[in-house]
């Protein structure tokens, strides 16, 4: 075939050709985006719109991932609207946990807040307090109220000697295990120490009861920092010293990362943990693929539900085993969340009034099935113990939680910890190198 007869290879493209083709493709792309509703956001749940000017509308931001369900929240809102002396309408926006922080920051950037009431994760306490996103609540909280809330919970929302949110969710990590697996391996009880736990995992693996005895949520997200803080707590220490300086390259911080890495190296922790989140880790546990999972309290309800779990009869909750040198009965990490009032809200008084109502012990005692209460009196009630037989165990864990650092630039500190721990668990660096990097990078960040 002669190229002289057919010349398309030499065919130049005119501007008209290009623009025609561009508009064709542009039109196709645009219409496809419109049709597919690209990047659709989770649905926003709203209560009926106000009928008159006299009605105060409160906009509240909550998550639809864990904690009280949408149904419970909407029920609380409806009851508050009925009980309130002022006509009030509460409009809830439910988003994923990962979107909460961004929504709050965007709301703070507006002259008047988009949301009046927000769910505040304890790790944002310092940032929001320092930048003035939320109002301090100290003059609204009486000593009687304070005395009925465990100091471990209350202190999580204190920064610069001021309280920035009222405790709402008493979330923390627990130890979950498969009693059947332990029984087959010849163990009659959950491990009492970190060392004993390691021995049990070795036995489970060597007896081929499971391929990987343990899974955790070690993908490069906030959950990884929680797991590292928790393991450090199990080893009897914290990642930061009393002066707020990073101290993970010695003592408990280093020991914890060495332990986590050892579990990977010895084939005791599923390597897939490095790209697994909390629900994913729970799924592996309730499928019976692994024997142990350390996770948030939401796992308990799922693992005991025969519709969701293959191990509902053998799944148990235990205390997170501390290392033999740690005198504490356990060590865990806090994931407390509170309700706060945006400082640029037009309805500060009404917002606080709603928070008082929503966090009331009566309300919390009605929802013991789904959440562990923040109030000590409710935790110790016979009703709580009846509904949740693990209530005492929960209380012990709660009293021994470790907080993540409360610094205004926490997100940057957390990103460094996530990256270094993740690299170490992927076998790209050794624990000593990773912890040393963490200390130098966090120190550089803080000047």
């Amino acid at each position: 075939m002669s190229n002289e007869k057919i010349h398309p290879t030499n065919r130049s493209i005119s501007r008209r050709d290009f623009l025609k083709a561009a508009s064709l493709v542009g039109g196709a792309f645009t219409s496809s985006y419109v049709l597919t509703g690209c990047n659709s956001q989770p649905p926003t749940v709203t209560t009926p719109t106000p009928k008159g000017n006299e009605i105060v509308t409160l906009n509240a931001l909550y998550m639809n991932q864990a904690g009280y369900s949408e149904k419970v929240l909407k029920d609380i809102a409806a009851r508050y609207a009925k009980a309130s002396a002022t006509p009030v309408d509460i409009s809830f926006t439910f988003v994923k946990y990962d979107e909460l922080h961004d929504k709050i920051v965007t709301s703070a950037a507006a002259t008047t807040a988009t949301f009046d009431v927000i769910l505040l994760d304890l790790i944002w306490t310092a940032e929001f307090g320092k930048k003035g996103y939320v109002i301090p609540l100290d003059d609204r909280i009486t000593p009687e109220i304070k005395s009925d809330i465990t100091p471990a919970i209350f202190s999580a929302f204190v920064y610069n000697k001021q309280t920035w949110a009222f405790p709402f969710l008493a979330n923390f990590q627990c130890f979950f295990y498969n009693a059947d697996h332990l029984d087959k391996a010849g163990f009659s009880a959950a491990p009492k120490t970190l060392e004993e736990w390691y021995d049990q995992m070795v036995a489970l693996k060597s007896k081929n009861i499971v391929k990987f005895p343990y899974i955790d949520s070690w993908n490069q997200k906030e959950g990884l920092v929680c797991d590292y803080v928790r393991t450090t707590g199990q080893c009897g220490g914290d990642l930061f010293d009393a002066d707020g300086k990073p101290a993970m390259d010695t003592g408990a911080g280093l020991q914890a990362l060495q332990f986590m890495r050892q579990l990977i190296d010895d084939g005791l922790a599923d390597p897939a943990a490095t790209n697994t989140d909390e629900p994913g880790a729970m799924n592996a546990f309730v499928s019976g693929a692994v024997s142990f999972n350390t996770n948030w309290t939401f796992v308990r309800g799922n693992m005991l539900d025969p519709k969701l779990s293959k191990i509902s009869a053998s799944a148990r909750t235990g205390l997170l085993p501390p290392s033999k040198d740690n005198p504490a009965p356990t060590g865990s990490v806090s994931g407390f969340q509170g309700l706060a009032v945006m400082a640029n809200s037009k309805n500060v008084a009404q917002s606080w009034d709603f928070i008082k109502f929503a966090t009331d012990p009566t309300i919390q005692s009605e929802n013991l099935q789904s959440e562990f209460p923040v109030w000590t009196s409710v935790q110790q009630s016979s009703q709580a113990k009846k509904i949740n037989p693990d209530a005492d165990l929960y209380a012990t864990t709660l009293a021994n939680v470790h907080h993540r650092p409360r610094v205004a630039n926490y997100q940057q500190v957390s990103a460094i910890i996530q990256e270094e721990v993740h690299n170490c668990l992927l076998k790209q660096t050794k624990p000593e190198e990773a912890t040393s990097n963490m200390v130098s990078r966090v120190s550089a960040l803080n000047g």
Partner: protein
Amino acid sequence: MLKRLYDYFVHPLTQIEFRVNRSDRLFVFLSLAPSILITMVVVFLPLFYALYLSFNNAEVVVIGGKGGVQTEWIGLSNYFYFLQDKAFWQGVRVTTYFTMVSLAVELTLGIIVALVLNQEFFGRGLVRALLILPWAVPTVVNARLWGLIYEPQSYGAMNGLFQLLGLTTPDNAINFLTPVPIFQDVPILGQLMGWIGSTSAINWIILADTWKVIPVVALLVLAGLQSIPLDLYEAAKVDGANNWQLFWSITLPMLRPILLVILVFRTMELFRVFDILYILMAYTIPVVGIRTFQETFVFGLFGRGSAIAFLIGLFILLIALVYINLISLEDE
């Protein structure tokens, strides 16, 4: 570079001849005014504000019950911060890898699918209609879907398929999204893969993203195929051309305009990839889109976030220039 951009984008606009009466011009401009106003408010205003923020330390604060962005002028510091940051350049390399490999796979498979669909066969209309379905799936849903497919346990869909085919056993489930460099244990090659960010995870995610995009590439190429005059093929066949020669000497050159436009659009989309990587891997694969999100909304550093966004824009502009040179436009 600026002259090239002017020649391509601005100069043609100055050559437009208004074929309307002088009295009608006011009507024309009044009709356009709302569009211009909206464009100014939703495009140019935020763009210039972001440019201003990029020269500042900017953070959200609430003072005296009023929210807003507090700024402190620091000149080009935000830009220098990234240009000197190794992690930023690692992000650029990973993003480039993602873009280039995705483009190569999408175009190759898109052309193959289009060539098949251009043949006569029973049920072709139905297949063409069904082909568009993956494109109709929202990006976030697509990411979640592939998250389930790549589930690293034996109950994951892909692992299930591999077990069905006898490639693996339930005890040896594959962790597809392992974020470690491929060929890690091979000297030099492993280091190179680590340097460009080629991991098992990113390669499987490219497959997931490609699955969604191939239909639109294939349909566009198909439209291009149908515009090729059949007498070109007939003439070539008379001259004794085989199928490969027909494809190489007629089909591919005639598809050049549409392929290059797809290339421009997809490059721009791929270079600012965010959603599928964030949903499946959070911050593990540090493409520049994820870094922008992290700096701006997670760290609350709006100045830095704006600076990196403009740097990405600059990279895309440079790529666009390369493409403009490639397609060698001629004045009509």
